[in-house]
């Protein structure tokens, strides 16, 4: 059950090279948004079982933040993108 992450910059690497930050789904509210929105963004997290988007930091390699699309039950990895590209596509939507 080796967790191999294919970094878009470095190639296939073991999970030991990465640090996991957490869910990549929450979107940062605007500075003028209500406190409730900020509270939800900072503290409220789902605890899903199955496919999730997560921020992973490739600390032992290119030192870039990545967004890993994986299943936390089967450890299957569906896709890895650089966090900058992820935000760009998200902004374009």
């Amino acid at each position: 059950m080796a967790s191999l992450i294919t970094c878009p910059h470095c190639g296939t690497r073991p999970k030991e090279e990465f640090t996991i930050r957490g869910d990549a789904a929450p979107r940062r509210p605007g500075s003028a948004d209500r406190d409730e929105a900020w509270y939800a963004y900072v503290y409220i997290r789902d605890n899903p079982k199955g496919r999730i988007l997560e921020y992973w930091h490739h600390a032992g390699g290119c030192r870039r933040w990545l967004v890993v699309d994986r299943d936390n039950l089967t450890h299957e990895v569906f896709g890895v993108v650089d966090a900058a590209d992820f935000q760009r596509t998200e902004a374009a939507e």
Partner: protein
Amino acid sequence: MTLHFLHRHVLEDHLAGFETRPNPNHVNVARRPVILSVLAHSGHEAAVAERLAELAGGSVRFCGPGEWLVAGPALLGEELADRLGEIPGASVCDQSDGKVLMAIGGPSARKILAKCVAADLHGDVFAEGQSANMLCCHVASNLARTGADLFEIIVPRSFAGSVFEELMEMGREYALTASFSED
């Protein structure tokens, strides 16, 4: 009172007492390498990469997007820094005193490194001339393939002792030897 500042390599104590006649599997520790880090400014990544590709004198190591290490012989030191300084959109920083360069070569080099790094080093995946940052003996380092059986590891100076000891331990069954190289 006069003070004499002598250049002392960080691995000096680790290498003392080792047999100096090299075996087929051998680690060459560069005594005074020149290592410069190059960072491309935002938006200039491709242009800087292009200029680095045609750089003469130093070998360019890929670290991450817009980030490279350039390693060269001590003789070229200032010249190399000047040449890199001319590249528009790039920032250059001398890392020579902060990094240690070790070259491991020999028929079993890949087998030894297989116990140190968790990346695939097969020629089809990690070809000659390719380089990347990876964990080597639990230390974030830069590994480059400079020949079919020749690899160069660049590690932070303070971790060099630990990486060197572990590398030698892993190479013991292949009779790995180590010495300083003069360039």
